[in-house]
């Protein structure tokens, strides 16, 4: 049976906890690079946060960037940032804050060079205080959200899981912010929304995984080590995690594609790009970061240390992936962590003989 077939049946036995050092190093490196970039390069904040004016118009004449720039120089706007949006069928101009007259002149100029009427030109002027308020309200929402979720997970599961989920969340947020910083995407209210969504996804994903771990603890407690139980749970939900990421990325990808090829959907595109990164990081962290972290942490608990000693006394070295011993479950062999820490998949599963189907007729 191939790895994929076993994954389909949830019969893999990857040792996620055993290989944790490798995953933690990857996570640490990603977080470090993100933080460095945030410190050095910073974020490119959009007009909504720093104030300024954005003008958007359809590019009916199919002008090139240089042509637009040349025309803008004529009205004293050489410092403006000019972009073509979509596949070149939209013009986007960003400037500092303008006075009423300056703005009117700019709108008229843009309408004239683009060959459209002034009512087809969209504009957005933002004072400097608006962004501060948006950022402040988002930050406040974030903090309260985190507190509520921590309490919720503590009640529904336990506090260790709550803090592990929180750590995974910060991990995802840092990496997403880092990608923004590294690639120089502009941070807009849409990106703030995207980041809040990632927050939701990341928690959602972690909660589903923890739900599984909790369920297995109920069943396998006393007979297995926590590491084994976490590994077993991870293998069982692996397919779900991969599938969920895929089905989440499909609509986001469709958003990304449509946003890139249709005029005016720049907001959608920015949104989709951030989500793409965030969902990826969220899936990674719930499998490779949150769960191993939880296992290591819980392994310290006296209860679980006793369980480990008991298991080792009874069966020698504890297995890496717990093997539930009730029911006619196809038994996957224990996958010991290799010296080099590589992911090893062993299969001792003996496929059940096909059942005879009795036909009624």
């Amino acid at each position, binding site marked *: 049976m191939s790895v994929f077939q076993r994954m389909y049946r949830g019969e893999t036995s990857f040792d996620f906890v055993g290989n944790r050092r490798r995953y933690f190093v990857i996570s640490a490196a990603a977080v470090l690079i993100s933080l460095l970039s945030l410190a050095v390069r910073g974020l490119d904040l959009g007009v909504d946060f720093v104030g300024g004016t954005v003008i958007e118009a359809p590019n009916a004449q199919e002008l090139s960037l240089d042509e637009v720039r040349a025309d803008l120089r004529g009205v004293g706007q050489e410092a403006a940032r000019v972009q073509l949006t979509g596949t070149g069928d939209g013009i986007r101009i960003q400037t500092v804050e303008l006075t009423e007259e300056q703005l009117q002149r700019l709108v008229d100029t843009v309408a004239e060079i683009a060959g459209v009427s002034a009512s087809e030109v969209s504009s957005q002027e933002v*004072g400097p205080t608006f962004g501060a308020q948006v950022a402040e309200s988002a930050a406040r929402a974030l903090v309260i959200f985190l507190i509520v979720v921590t309490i919720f997970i503590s009640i529904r599961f336990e506090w260790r899981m709550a803090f592990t989920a929180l750590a995974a969340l910060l991990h995802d947020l840092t990496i997403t912010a880092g990608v923004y910083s590294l690639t120089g995407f502009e941070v807009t209210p849409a990106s703030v929304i995207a980041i809040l969504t990632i927050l*939701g996804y990341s928690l959602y994903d972690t909660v*589903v995984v923890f739900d599984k771990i909790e369920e297995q603890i109920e069943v396998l407690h006393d007979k297995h080590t926590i590491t084994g139980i976490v590994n077993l749970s991870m293998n069982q939900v692996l397919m779900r995690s991969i599938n969920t990421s895929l*089905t989440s990325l499909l*609509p986001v990808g469709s958003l990304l594609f449509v946003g890139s090829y249709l005029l005016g959907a720049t907001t959608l595109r920015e949104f989709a790009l951030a989500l793409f990164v965030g969902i990826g990081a969220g899936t990674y962290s719930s499998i490779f970061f949150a769960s191993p972290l939880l296992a290591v942490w819980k392994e310290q608990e006296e209860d679980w240390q006793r369980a480990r000693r008991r298991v080792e006394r009874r069966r020698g070295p504890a297995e890496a992936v717990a093997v539930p011993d009730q029911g006619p479950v196809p038994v996957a062999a224990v996958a010991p962590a290799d010296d080099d820490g590589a992911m090893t998949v062993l299969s001792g599963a003996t496929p059940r003989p096909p059942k005879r189907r009795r036909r009624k007729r």
Partner: protein
Amino acid sequence: MSRRRALVAALITLIVAWGALAVTLALGATPRLGLDLQGGFAVRLVAPDGTDSEVLDKAVEIMRRRIESLGGVQEPEIAVAGDNAVEVQLPGVTDRDRALAAIGSTGELSFRQVATIGQLPGVSPIYAELGVEPPGFAADLNQAGDDATTTTVEGGETTTTTEPPAAGPPDNWPDNVDWDTGLTIVDDPAQEAWLLEPDSGLVYHVGPALLTGADITGADAQFAGGGHGGGVGGWVVDPSFTGEGGDKFREATGQLATFNIADPRRRFAIVLDGAVVSAPVVAEGVGPEGLSPSAVTITIGGGDDQQSEAEDLATVLRYGALPATFETDRVESVSATLGDDSLNAGLVAGIGGLILVGFALLFYYRALGLIAIAGLSVFGAFLLFLFSFLGETQGVTLTLAGVAGIVVSIGITSDSYIVYFERIKEEVRHGRSVRAAVDNAFPRAFRTILTADAVSLFGAVLLFLLAVGAVKGFAVALGLATVIDVIVAAFFTRYAAAFLVRTRLGDGGRFSIRGATGLPVASDAAEAGA
């Protein structure tokens, strides 16, 4: 669960969802589109820090009245946002200068001499002045006094109708006055005008402005003990003037004081944005030398709530229209084309995303994927219905951020199917029959779905309560979608799966649920045997 019961339950949910959508669409209700999806004009105005929330509410009220007087704005949205800001959204408005002037400026205030006052509320004195019969006057009487004009005669009913008077205004009718209402259409303070006092319904004929808002520096509402003519005392308003304004006021009141106390011409009307706010009389005993601007008080008549009346008048005098000076913080105008494009992009992305997810689930979970596809259609129908319904009744708008939220929620709802289907596979691995697995997997999977959805819902509610602007629209969409996800799982997915597993698609070939769980199917055995 019997096959029949499962089928009926699943069908009921399906019919309810599609039926609700069909009824809403048949009634012509569609989701109310936000400004960024249909084009329009949005302004965010900020009041100075520490502005009282009552003052903001008052400002919102005044702005709404002004926007409505602009005409041609469908469903303006004006609301207090945050601690000291007001957000104004005007869908479909493209004339930014006019819109900005209507909401941003503090309004045009003038003091004008009254010439005549209409005898009845709602009837302009202009008809009497020009000696013409008001149009529709007779018709109004007809409507108002239906009983009087309809006499029941034996065997039938006859209605007496009065012939309408000569249609159309006379030659000397002023251009700027509406023939039907007898009111000035656009008030110019430099000209005479026929203006309504909204509180009483009376129409005043007023002269050109004697003073304007620029002549007034402030006003205070105070309680004055008796003394004014030995009265019991009451609420008064003390206006204060600039030096030049004071002179103008003294001169104007002197002029007015030459008229008899009962003459309307002894009154001056305080006019704001083309409406009479109040029309005090110059007190008895004031001579042609006029009133001293430093000692003037406006006494409030015997209203029920003198205090609020005095405070309102003081506010009007102090600020013109708006009770605070607002600064424009953010102005956004979206062209209709851009709005259309965004809407189309959102729709294409949403529908495309749904189809892609449907195919992925069908490919991976085979027969179970069919349930997911039907479930996604129920999800979509419910969501569209809710947005149409809430848009119509609660004024909930669907914004671009909301569309993004919906596209994201497709991922969340498809996860619910995946959790359930993976659970079924697992139960089968634990040795249950396919049928038992489908039934047993649901309660456990539903618990997971509930927990995960609860986290999403927390997020949505908190975002809605705490965030501003676009984020709110996103929160609404996400919250609604999460609730619908739970509903679909509880009332559709469970029954549809219970039904399907009891058909040929449950335990048939490779495409069946049995095939999807990875169990060997009949065709495998046949191949192995061949």
